[in-house]
Structure formats: structure tokens, C-alpha cells
């Protein structure tokens, strides 16, 4: 589809206008195309990170998550942060229009909206006070350790939640269809994967964010980026001083307002020939839409007079905060297992689902180092949750750590060979670790619960926990001291336990395992 709205006879396509301005390499009328192509590439790459449950995409594309502003800041990734600052100081907020997946996502929504009616925007004054207020709240939340409150506002993690809640299931279902056919053709190219709701509160937050974003983007383009997004506010401040910026040539301008009407950031004030660079995301749409070639992306010789006019603010919805309820009780299948009497007629016993036990201290993966480090750095983007192949990581429903991942072992356990969460975390909340590091990092310890152990309740021999403990921390000991013939119960050597949860996951007791892992506030090396 051609983007240009050439609905008036005077319109001239950009190729027919003046010479290249920015450089000799890229004619100015190509700038928008370059921006679009780059944006699509970044957007696809970041989205793929959330879709790819095999973890193979991260080796190639993991860097697209690591160059996101807030994760890089939290990871104290000086190089990336400096790079983004320099990028913004040279080109303006191209981060927002190319690198940020949430920004591009809004552009996609707006693109659909524009198919119905183009040149749909108009200039509106900046809501500077709101932007600053949100930024202050955001910084305070981060510093005070309310990471999940900050995560509500952070653009990359918002997109992560949307992608992992809505796009990833669709992708996984598509994969499962392929796996279905592969299985019937005797191919092992695809294998099916579980699709499950990891946390209702997080899903609701993601849904609310998605709705608000779609509505805002449909109606007003980059409203979110220029009123709420704290990253947008910070970069906007830098972008005022950027070297290159779109500039209106007052000699050529005929005041047709095509530029303002095409500006999704609503930042072009044609009357005053001024552009609010704190809101301009350098999308280059205005360049393409000016039939006179009056908007050019150049380094202005004189600073263009610009003043953000404060006007009456329409109520900006901050609905991302809206409507999440904490923990809905898990629906437990009321089917009791009770060891069925042995018959010989085949069939399979019903397996009752495991329930999440209460853990005094939540469990976080090996690279997290400590609960405190983890909650301070995690942006709740759900990348690790999406990629966890064992169904261990899921967003917390705890109000203090809402949406930040935690571990639980109902569906699987933290397998010794897996290092994926550490490989993918862009924010340094889970530092990269090796399988060897993990086998020596104590993230918690196992606790035996006499009342559930099948050795005592069913009177059968077991020892499945001991058999599967990767560190050999569990020994089976006689339940009656001194009587070697008595049923054997597990004894946990806490000093060797790393808290991987193999024992808890593979314990036959249901719905609550007879052995559960308690987290440690600070991880230690054993």
C-alpha cells in the first residue's frame, strides 16, 4: 500500500522533489523507508524471542532484547545505555520508532487505523506535567524496589507480556498443529509444546495493557509514548538536543498542514512552524507527506524556536494499572487418586494435578543471586517465562513482586542441563550461568513433609526423590531408627541440596508433594 495521501492535485511524490539532504547515500525521501524496514526487522526479531520456546533464536537475536533501554539500564550495561544516548543525541528518538517493540506495535495498529482514514492526526500540546509525574513515579518505584509497579509502565516489558500472553500461545498452537502432522509422517522435526496460563493476574494486566494501547494507538498514534512512557520522556529530553531533526523550511511551507495531520506524535505546530522534538519519534512520515519538500531531516543552522505549549490536558488514561485482581484460587480437579486396587484390565490411573505449595521464601533461578537483586533488576518482561522449557517459571501473583517470575515445580523441575533463563534475561536480573554453576548454586533447599509421604501413607517402597536428586543430597533412611528393615524415608542433606525441585516434581504424593523446596533470600555456592 502506498502510504502517501495524495488526495489533492498539488501533491508531488517525494522522488520528484529536491535533492538528497541528509547524506549523499540516503536521499531524504528514502528515510521513511529505511526507518520502516529497520523497525520491521527489530520488531520481528524481538517478537520471535518471545515466541521461540526452543531457545534457539536467542543465540542469534538475543541482542535485540539486550539493547532495550530499561533492561540495559537495570543491567548496568553502560555500553548499551551510552550507545542509545548517543543515538538519540544524533538522530532523535529513533529508538522509539525502530528498536522499541511496543512503539512499533503501536505503529502497526495505527497503520491499520490509517487504512480507513489517512492524515488523521492533528497537533496537540504536550502534557509535560503528566509525563514528568509518571517519570517521577517510575523512578521512585524502581529505587524503592517496587519493580512490578515500574514494570507496569516500562514499554519493553509491557510488550513482552503482551507477546508472551497473546502471541506466543498462537505460535505454540500453530507449532502443535505442525507437530501433529509431523508425528503422523514419522518426522521428528516438530514436537508439541504445552500451552498453559501461567498467571491470571499477569494475563489480565497484559490484556488491559493491550486494550489501552490499541485504543490509544488507533485514535491518536503515539499517545502512550508521549504521555506515559517513562523511556519516551527520558529520550524525549535528550532528543531536543539531537543533531539531526526534522525542520520546516518556512520559505517553502504553504501551511497546508499535511505534515501535522500525518504526525502520529501530534508534535508539529504548523502555525508556528515548530516541532516538539521531545515528542518527535523521527518516523519521517512528515517528510514524505510534504508535497513542497518543506520538511527536511537536517541539522538546523539555527535552533528552531520551540516551546512546549502547556494546554488543557485531556485525561490521559493510565489504565495499565487498572483491573488486576490478585490470585484466583486454582481450580483443582477434585479427583482423588488414592492408589487404586490393582486390577489387570489395562487403562490408566487418573493423575491428580499437583497444587502449588506455600513457600516461605519464593524461588528464583540460579543466576538471580538473591531475591533482592532479582526484584530490583527484573522488568517483568516474561522473556524467561516464555523460554523456560520445563514449565517452572511463571509470573508471581504476589503483590510485592507482581508479574516478576518465580519458580514452582508442579509441571516440571529446574533441569540440570538447562541455562535458558540466564541466557535470555536482558536486564541482568538473572545473570548468565553455566550448567556447572547451577549445579553448585543453592537457590533453596528441600523440606520433607511426613504427612504426605507415600512410604508412610500408602505403605509402599518409593525413594523417587533420592533416585532423581542430581546432587545426591537425599538418602533413604529407615523410618524407625535402628530398624534397617523398616520402610525407608528420605533424609535431606541441606548442605548439598541446590533446590532444583526434582524431588518435589517427581514425588508421587498428590496434590501436595511430600517434599517441597523452600527458597533462599540469598543464593549461595555449595
Amino acid at each position, binding site marked *: 500500500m502506498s502510504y502517501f495521501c495524495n488526495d489533492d492535485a498539488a501533491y508531488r511524490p517525494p522522488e520528484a522533489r529536491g535533492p538528497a539532504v541528509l547524506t549523499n547515500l540516503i536521499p531524504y525521501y528514502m528515510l521513511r523507508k529505511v526507518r520502516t524496514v529497520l523497525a520491521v526487522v527489530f520488531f520481528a526479531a524481538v517478537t520471535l524471542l518471545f515466541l521461540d520456546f526452543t531457545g534457539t533464536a536467542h543465540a542469534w537475536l538475543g541482542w535485540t532484547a539486550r539493547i532495550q533501554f530499561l533492561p540495559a539500564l537495570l543491567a548496568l550495561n553502560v555500553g548499551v545505555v551510552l550507545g542509545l544516548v548517543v543515538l538519540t543525541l544524533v538522530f532523535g528518538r529513533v529508538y522509539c520508532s525502530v528498536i522499541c517493540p511496543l512503539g512499533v506495535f503501536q505503529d502497526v495498529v495505527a497503520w491499520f487505523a490509517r487504512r480507513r482514514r489517512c492524515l488523521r492526526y492533528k497537533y496537540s500540546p504536550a502534557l509535560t506535567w503528566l509525563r514528568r509525574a509518571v517519570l517521577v513515579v517510575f523512578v521512585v518505584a524502581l529505587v524503592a524496589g517496587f519493580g512490578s509497579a515500574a514494570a507496569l509502565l516500562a514499554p519493553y516489558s509491557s510488550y513482552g507480556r503482551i507477546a508472551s500472553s497473546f502471541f506466543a500461545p498462537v505460535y505454540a498452537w500453530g507449532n502443535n498443529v505442525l507437530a501433529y502432522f509431523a*508425528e503422523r509422517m514419522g518426522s*521428528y522435526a516438530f*514436537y508439541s509444546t504445552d500451552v498453559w496460563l501461567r498467571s491470571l493476574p499477569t494475563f489480565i494486566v497484559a490484556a488491559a495493557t493491550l486494550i489501552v494501547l490499541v485504543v490509544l494507538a488507533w485514535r491518536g498514534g503515539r499517545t502512550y509514548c508521549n504521555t506515559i512512557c517513562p523511556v519516551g520522556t527520558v529520550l524525549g529530553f535528550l532528543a531536543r538536543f539531537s543533531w539531526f531533526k526534522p525542520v520546516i523550511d518556512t520559505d517553502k511551507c504553504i501551511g497546508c498542514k499535511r505534515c501535522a495531520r500525518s504526525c502520529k506524535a501530534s508534535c508539529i505546530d504548523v502555525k508556528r512552524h515548530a516541532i516538539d522534538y521531545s515528542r518527535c519519534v523521527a518516523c519521517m512520515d512528515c517528510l514524505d507527506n510534504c508535497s513542497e519538500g518543506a520538511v527536511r531531516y537536517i541539522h538546523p543552522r539555527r535552533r528552531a524556536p520551540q516551546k512546549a505549549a502547556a494546554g488543557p490536558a485531556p485525561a490521559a488514561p493510565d489504565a495499565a494499572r487498572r483491573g488486576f485482581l490478585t490470585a484466583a484460587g486454582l481450580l483443582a480437579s477434585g479427583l482423588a487418586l488414592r492408589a*487404586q486396587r*490393582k486390577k489387570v*484390565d489395562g487403562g*490408566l*490411573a487418573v493423575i491428580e494435578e499437583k497444587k502449588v505449595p506455600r513457600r516461605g521464601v519464593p524461588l528464583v533461578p540460579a543466576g538471580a543471586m538473591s531475591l533482592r537483586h532479582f526484584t530490583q533488576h527484573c522488568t517483568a518482561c516474561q522473556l524467561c517465562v516464555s523460554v523456560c522449557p520445563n514449565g517452572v517459571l511463571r509470573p508471581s501473583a504476589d503483590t510485592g513482586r507482581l508479574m516478576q517470575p518465580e519458580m514452582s515445580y508442579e509441571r516440571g523441575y529446574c533441569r540440570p542441563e538447562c541455562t535458558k533463563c540466564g541466557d535470555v534475561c536482558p536486564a541482568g536480573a538473572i545473570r548468565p550461568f553455566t550448567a556447572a554453576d547451577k549445579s553448585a548454586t543453592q537457590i533453596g533447599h528441600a523440606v520433607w513433609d511426613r504427612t504426605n509421604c507415600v512410604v508412610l501413607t500408602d505403605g509402599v517402597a*518409593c525413594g*523417587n526423590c533420592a533416585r532423581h536428586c542430581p546432587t545426591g543430597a537425599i538418602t533413604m533412611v529407615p523410618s524407625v531408627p535402628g530398624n534397617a528393615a523398616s520402610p525407608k524415608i528420605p533424609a535431606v542433606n541441606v548442605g548439598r541440596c541446590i533446590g532444583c525441585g526434582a524431588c518435589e516434581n517427581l514425588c508421587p504424593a498428590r496434590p501436595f508433594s511430600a517434599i517441597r523446596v523452600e527458597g533462599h533470600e540469598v543464593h549461595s555456592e555449595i
Partner: protein
Amino acid sequence: MDDSRHNGKSLSRRDFFKVAGAAGLAAAGLAACGGRDEAAAGGEDAAPAGEMTRRPNPKTGEKVSLLGFGMMRLPFKGGEDGREGGETVDQEEVNRLVDYALAHGVNYFDTSPAYCQGQSERATGAALSRYPRDKYFVATKLSNFSPDTWSHDASVAMYRNSLKELRVDYIDYLLLHGVGMGGMEELNHRYLENGVLDFLLKEREAGRVRNLGFSYHGDIEVFDYLLARHDKYRWDFVQIQLNYLDWKYAKQINSRNTDAEYLYGELEKRGIPAVIMEPLLGGRLSNVPDNIVARLKEREPERSIASWAFRFAGTFPGVLCVLSGMTRMEHLQDNLRTYSPLEPLTQEEFQFLLDTATMMMKFDTIPCNDCKYCMPCPYGIDIPGVLLHYNKCLNEGNVPASAQDPRYRAARRAFLVGYDRSVPRLRQASHCIGCNQCSPHCPQGIDIPKELHRIDAYVEQLKQETL
């Protein structure tokens, strides 16, 4: 014949052609039964050429078809393999199979109250009752495995229920089911102390049981005990496991079992007709390693792998009937071809099969026949599913011995992905706690927890790449 093929969800090319062949036959119409299907060119796709071989029952003189229809592996609705529990037997398909079998000379149908999650007898009754009572022989068993059926009354109720389910006034062949599992002690509990065997002897006198016998697995003491009292009990037939692997290697495969050579010899000595079960070892003699396939096909390129096993079992003159659990039409058709008529093995071919067995012993497949007697596992594990997956991978060369194996990557993926496909994670070997409630029920005497733990340890090595 192929008792385990129905477990594999994948449709091999060969299976495809067989299905196509069956479809062709169905199209030709059952009116053409007995005749050769003109359209089918290859040996494997043709309908049986001649008459079914029949063997006389020495007591009654009745002629029993050499191929007996085992009703243990009946098709389930929707093509399910009966793994999950709660499936229903596909009666229409059962009828179709029974119709075809009867039309081609099969007249012996073997069921039990325990088969197909308890649905087999009813399905058998429904299918057979559409024919005159003198057109078929029905065999069923007194399957009082569970201790709460050990009482006289409960066992007799089970027997009477069999008559009702089968819709018959008399049973042609009645068996004490699976004696030897649990040793003499269980034999005492199930049949001797409670007077159930005496009751059955009386039923035989009354004509409601025309032939009385027992099926045997496991402890040889029980087999010898019952045969030693042949004068008292006058066994009309005995059902034993016989095939070219068990002929000399049953004891080597599992020390609890006894070589078929001995079992058959004991019966022949006393002139007791033998009914053969597991001629294919639950499909393990049709799904064989590739080198065995090549070896057998080299001799008889147009015959199925399974046909060798059936010819082996049928060649013994003292064999009355060879049972096969046939889930699909192509199993039935292949077996019909083998036995219509039987071409007995020559002495040289007999030795060839024994040599083949010696070669097969080098593969350490687990002797699971997928009879599901071990099921349901109280902790939800799909025991036969796990064991069969392992065997399948062994046969297909997907059990790499080390990471240096040139096919390691592909084999690892096939093993692990196939494992998750054939057995849901919650039902895999890692959940086996070793309570050992299953092993006593295994007719093959497999130490199930040991095998599951071994497979689980292997899976861990594959997953962690520490092989």
C-alpha cells in the same frame, strides 16, 4: 498377528499399502470371500488362496481352525489404542473382523473377562451371537486375579457372567487364567482351596463347559503340579506361550519362565492339545531389528515377517490352535494367508528360525507383549507405553550407546521427541517409585521397576548429554 502395530501411531509405507490393499478387498465385496483378489498382485496383498488348516480336537473330534482369534487387542473407537482408559471398543469394526474371519474359516475365538478393560467378552458375544451357535467355538477364562474375587461365590459369579456376556448356554473352551503367576500359593487361593476347580469339573460333566484347560505363565511348579494330576483333572487342552524366541530362550530372557520346548514336550507326552498364545510375542516377532528383517526377507521376500512366527507355531502337530490378537484387518488377512493352508516349516527352516532367535537375543529388547496386565499402575505410569517405546527405538537403532555414535544427534532427538509423543510426561518412567505392585502381574516376568529405572536413567543421560 501383529499385536503391537496398533500402538504405533505412525503409518509406515508398508502399513499404508496394506491398508490400501484392505480397502481394495473391501471394495471387492465380501461376496468374493475365499476367492483370490485379482487386483492384488503381490503376495502380501492377496486374499488367502486355499482352505484354512484345521486340527481335530482328540476328545470331541471337532475341527478347530489353526488360526484362533484372540480378543485381547480389539480395536477401540476413533482408532484409540486403549491406552488412556475409558475408551469403548469399536463394535462395528469387531463385527467386521469377526465376519471376515468366520468367512475365511476361523472358528476359534478366545476372550476373557479381563480383556479390553472388561469389554472384550461383551463385544465377542455381540459379534458371535449373530451366527448359529455351532459355527464357532468360544474360549474364555476365569480371570479371578483380584483377591476380592478369590472366594467361591465371586469366582462362580464371574463364570456365570461370562455365559451371559457371551450370550451362550455353554462354553466350548474354558481356562483357568494365567496360572503360575503368583506361584502355587495363588493357584491355591484362586482355584483349589475355594473349590472353584471342582465346580468347573462339575460344569464340564454337565456339558456347560465342553473343554477345560488352563493357560500358563511363570512358575513351572504350577505347570508340573497341574499336569501331574492329569489323570484326575483330564485337561482337554493347555494354553502355553510358544514362539521361536521362547523355544530355547524363554528362561534366558527371564529366569522365572520356562522354555517352550519343555512345555510343549510335556503336553505332547500326555497327548494334551496345545493352544498357543503369544506366537508373535506381542508383536516383537513382527517388529524386529532391521538386520533380522533383511535375513527373513532374503529367504521369503513376499512373506511377512510375522508369517515366519505363525508357521513356527503351527508346524507342531500337537498344536490345536494358534491365537493372534488381531486389531486390524490387515493383521487378520496376513494370518489367513499364512494358515490357508499352513505350509509347515522344513527341518532346515526350523533351524533357520532358531538361529534367528539366537541372533535376536543379542538385542536387549524388553520382553513386553503389551498385554497390559500390569495396568493400571496406581501411580499413573504407562508401563507398556514406556517399554514399547524403548523397544521401538532399539529396533530402529535410536538408542545410541555413546555421544560418539555417528547418528547420536538424530537418534537422541528421535528417542526424546518420540518418548514425549508416545507417553505423556506425567506417565513416563521418571515417575516410577518402585512400589513393585506391577511385576507380580507380568506374565513375562519382567522386573518392571528395574527396567523403568534403567530407561529413566538412560533418558536422563540423553537429556543431560552425559552419555
